């Protein structure tokens, strides 16, 4: 698509209108390298292959334009890998880990802390084990805002609850555990999260192919390293707004 609009001109050509429309569509996927060329006034005429095609953009476009950046992950390496420079503000995060309890809640601790202090509530749907309230409180999570749909709930009702919670503006964060979900179901949940402007974190054991989620992470544990810390490998399988994939090793206190 030709997006050549001279800087400073007030002409509203059809191409310009289309460009404006594309800019306003936040859900549109843009590669990092193409985003640079889409910035008004920064690209050259007919520049389909910019010079920095294979270089990493330190300030990702999506975070700049849409203001979608949320709470920092607390790990600079992971923040640098994510296109928002933090957790996304809304949408669906898929966390793939084969074994529950390898540190996934510790990874999300800053996010949980921040969201639980807001007026909205946090919903835990079908967690694999009973939650220990004092530990969450020690972590900084406000348990007054937290509500739990127990694991005994059937899969259908759990999915219904996830969708309703994501659609609702009253819910700030939805944490849900399911063994596996198809891309079609994830797509539906992603739309629900977009409708309610809510952030959902979906834990499951197998990654869905061609997942339409906002962010797809794969977690794997690494042996305990030096005293007081354990390692966890976080692999970004997919992040909307970026085609960069990568793996970082983060240290979690233990």
């Amino acid at each position, binding site marked *: 698509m030709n997006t050549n609009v001279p800087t400073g001109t007030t002409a509203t050509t059809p191409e310009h209108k289309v460009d404006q429309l594309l800019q306003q569509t936040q859900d549109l996927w843009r590669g990092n390298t193409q985003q640079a060329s889409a910035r008004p006034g920064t690209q050259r005429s007919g520049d389909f292959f910019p010079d920095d095609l294979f270089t990493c953009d330190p300030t990702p476009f999506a975070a700049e334009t849409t203001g979608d950046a949320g709470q920092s992950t607390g790990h600079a390496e992971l923040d640098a890998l994510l296109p928002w420079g933090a957790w996304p503000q809304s949408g669906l995060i898929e966390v793939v880990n084969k*074994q529950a309890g390898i540190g996934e809640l510790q990874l999300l601790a800053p996010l949980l802390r921040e969201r639980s202090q807001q007026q909205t509530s946090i919903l835990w749907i079908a967690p694999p084990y009973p939650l*220990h309230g*004092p530990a969450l409180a*020690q972590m900084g999570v406000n348990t007054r805002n937290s*509500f739990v749909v*127990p694991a005994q709930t059937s899969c259908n009702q759990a999915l219904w609850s996830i969708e309703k919670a994501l659609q609702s503006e009253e819910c700030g964060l939805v944490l849900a555990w399911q063994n596996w979900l198809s891309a079609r179901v994830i797509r539906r949940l992603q739309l629900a999260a977009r409708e309610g402007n809510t952030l959902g974190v979906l834990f499951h054991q197998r990654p869905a192919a061609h997942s339409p989620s906002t962010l797809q992470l794969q977690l794997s544990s690494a*042996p305990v390293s030096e005293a007081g810390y354990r390692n966890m490998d976080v692999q970004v399988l997919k992040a909307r707004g970026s085609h960069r994939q990568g793996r970082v090793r983060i240290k979690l206190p*233990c």
Partner: protein
Amino acid sequence: MLSRRQNQPFARTPRGSARAANRHSPQPQVPRSRAVRSKRSGLWYAIYFPELPDIAHSETSATSLAAQHCQNISDYISLDGDDALVLEVSRSLRYFGGLARIRQSIESGIASHLGHTQYFQAVTPSASASLLIARAGQEAAIGTPEDLRSRLGSIPTHTLAIDLRVRRKLAQCGLFNLRDIWRLPLTELRIRFGRHFSDYIENCLGLRPESRPRWQAKAEYHESFDADHGLHSVQQIISACEKLLHQLEAFLKKNHLCTDRLEFLFDYGHRGQATDSKSDQHDSITVNVRKAGRTARLFLLLLETQLAEKTFAGEVYSITLQVRHLAHFQPEGGYQQKQRTAADRHGSHLLDTLAAKLGSRGVQRFLLQQDYCPEFATRMVPYLTSVAEDDVGSSDSAYTTSHNPCWLLQPPRPLVIRHQQLHYLSPLTLLRGPRRIETRWWQDQGIRRDYYVAANAQGLLLWIYQDLARNSSTQPRQHDWYLHGFFG
């Protein structure tokens, strides 16, 4: 114009009562008929039930049932404890045509509601005196305050509704009947037995105005929809319920009320499939919300959620909407809003909808308790349960690195020991510990555990413990080590 105090009807001045005498001295001696005086003082009808009947399957007490019937006679009813009530009947005398008719009406009402229950009745110009006579197991009708002293004189002091300590003191002073008390001046009584006692005596004699808390019947809402033809589809039932809900909303708004619980009764008439017994001819759905409301739209949404999974036994011919939990409506914002607890603020449509779909235990909240034993520190309670704000727990304190696991296994899983080493999927390495937890020693099975943080080759961080209580009480066994949680 007489002051309010002067305007009070006054019986004979108690002997030696300086206060009463002073109060009376400036008052002009205006002759009044007895009827006028009794009208101004009021006439209190007391009923005392020495043995309350046990009313099965009812939320209302026997006294409340009697009070409900007495609403037909007087608008001023006051309960005295759980076993007595008193109502003001002076304004009903003309309507009923005398005290005898009122008594007849009360007795027939009690007989129909409570059956053959023993009770005592008394009518006097003073509520306290009426209750005192009835509680003493006597029955009397006294029209004027002047007659109260002589009638009450024979009542023993141990039946007075006063503090036990004062009652003992009266006995120690040799005051066994009220007649003994009449001989003492009120000022001396106040000094010796306290202000409450002297006020009570003045109340019994009708010397001071008495204000008693009014009893009000719990408001209920009851509305039915009768269909000409049987309603067979959910959509038809929903639209019928919608009409009922809109009527309810209008009622609640008109009366400044709100509710947190509705009950729909669906009647299949005689054509339902499950007509084996009478109780099977109807079905019911209860709609609960955490924060009381009055919007038909919200209730309809929750009802639709529940009806989506409901199977009716037949065609519905009648729908009844019952509301028994009515509360005064408090609008959003302003001072009242600030006074509400956080739990009220967190009442939300989303959680109400989830609870309607998943059932009362389908949505739970945390109830943190101060307990050393980890499994008792967290209790999950249904979302709709009202709990004290302090019990819900908070994270106000500064957070530190958690030494408690986020996941707690219930019950703890025994760990396997292979080649002198603990195993969970792979051999465990102890990273930290021990941390001793010793509590509930006052129970048969006390808790004495040494907790450790351990890691396995898969990178799992485990919270394990060695059960020392089991070790000390019995011979050492293999299952002394348990996995109690994961650091998620």
